[in-house]
């Protein structure tokens, strides 16, 4: 599964890093979009049942949390990507 960008593709590119590797998003992407445009999952369940990629997109399910350097734990669906952001997938 990958997100498919259907519209709004003319936005400026934003460079960030995902687990230390360079990645590209678009201005106005949430971290959830930014990550899933580059990778298949957002985090790994700490309970041993595999990878997760968010669920509700609206800040309710708390299943898309990631680590952002300097900010700690954030919800990917309600945090916007920023130039130079260092994102780690837990």
């Amino acid at each position, binding site marked *: 599964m990958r997100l498919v960008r259907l*519209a709004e593709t003319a936005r400026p590119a934003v460079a960030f890093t995902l687990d230390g590797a360079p990645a590209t998003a678009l201005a106005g992407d949430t971290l959830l979009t930014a990550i899933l445009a580059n990778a298949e*999952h957002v985090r790994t*369940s700490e309970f*041993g049942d595999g*990878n997760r990629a968010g*669920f509700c997109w609206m800040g309710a399910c708390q299943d898309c949390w990631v680590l952002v350097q300097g900010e700690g734990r954030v919800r990917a669906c309600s945090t916007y990507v920023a130039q130079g952001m260092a994102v780690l997938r837990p």
Partner: protein
Amino acid sequence: MTVAVVGAGPAGTRAAEVLVQAGLRPVVIDEAPDNGGRIYQRPPAGFRRSDGDLYGTEAHKAQALHRRFDQLRGAIDLRASTLVWDVRPQQLLTLRDGRSETIGFEQAILCTGAMDRVIPLPGWTLPGVYTLGGAQVALKTQGCAIGQAVAFLGTGPLLWLVAYQYAKAGARVAAVLDTTDFATKAWRTGGLLRGGRTFLNGLRYVGWLRWRGVRIVEGVVPEAIEGDGEVTGLRYRTRHGTHHIACDAVGIGWGLKPETQLADLAGVSFAFDPVQRGWLPVRNEAGRTDIRGIYLAGDGVRIGGADVAELAGARVAWAVVEDRGLPVDHAAVARLDRALQRQAKFRQALDRAFPYPHRLAAGMADDTILCRCEAITAGAMRAAATAEVNRTKALTRIGMGRCQGRVCGPAAAEVLAAALGCPVEQVGRLRGQPPVKPIPMRTAAAG
């Protein structure tokens, strides 16, 4: 002391409008960076699609609401990107940009909105499975489809709306699977005719999808979302046998459920609603509750949709105005009351046309993950079943994870009730606990 409005969606916006009209300057708080709620959520700066593309037949309503909110900005104390994480008597505990602040209030109108009601099934935690509402947010506010070939599964108006919006935006819709038998027939039932345009829109979406050749199956029993590490398909049953659909993403949802946590923390009484099959905060027609200073409106109380939310938001604000001893526009209140009564009849018909398939939830297999926060199975709940849902929560941690039971709550109650052989209302309801969403320890300590 001020009036606080929590939530800047359709209900909160119309509440703020009336309060300002009455000469008040309310504090308006929303967790999102901008107004609109989920239904009329505004995309970030730099997005260019038209309101018609974003909101479809409801574009004129979204525009009117956004315009009104923009006019109100100078007349309200707007706190955007602010989470209310606890309610205490005359106090809201908030968090913004890592900073906590206590906001005092004399009256608080809670317009906390809703989220999807889901039924766990095998594979629902795989990457690529999202709520219907989530699939819609992805498209509306990010311009993205959740996959290359998307199947939609569940029931209710949102199922058809999201499938329509995806197909219209150019996504490949692999199938629309409705767990309600003959939804098309249900759309035609008498009460739905009262809904006027809402009803006609529903018919239009179904018709358009059929015309486009989208696979539509009604009365399905979902068996599993398949895939090893990611979604590769969906298996379901009909009376003709077992079927398989290839897809790489699935949107699921069985109607919506109100976000009632703040009303709960404020101490508002709850009652079981047999039609919506859940515990809902009790308020009168005007939106007053049994807790002095706490008022409720919109989908955060009872699912009624955006039109009802706008009406209820305005109505509850007039109750606040009245309770503060300020002059009330009685003609406006009477108009709102009449409109709300008309809408209630349509809503009842809609709830009956798309009932929550509680047997599906109650019958989930023992090894199905029920709580996705901590990967706890339905079998674990059955093994630890006690007569009360909070007791079972304490024993199993089902409903105690990061989402506080928002996602698994309704299904967990069905699993427990079925295990005990009692009506679902008898197991009670999961009590809300602060913080309603995860916050840093230093914030909780300061609160």
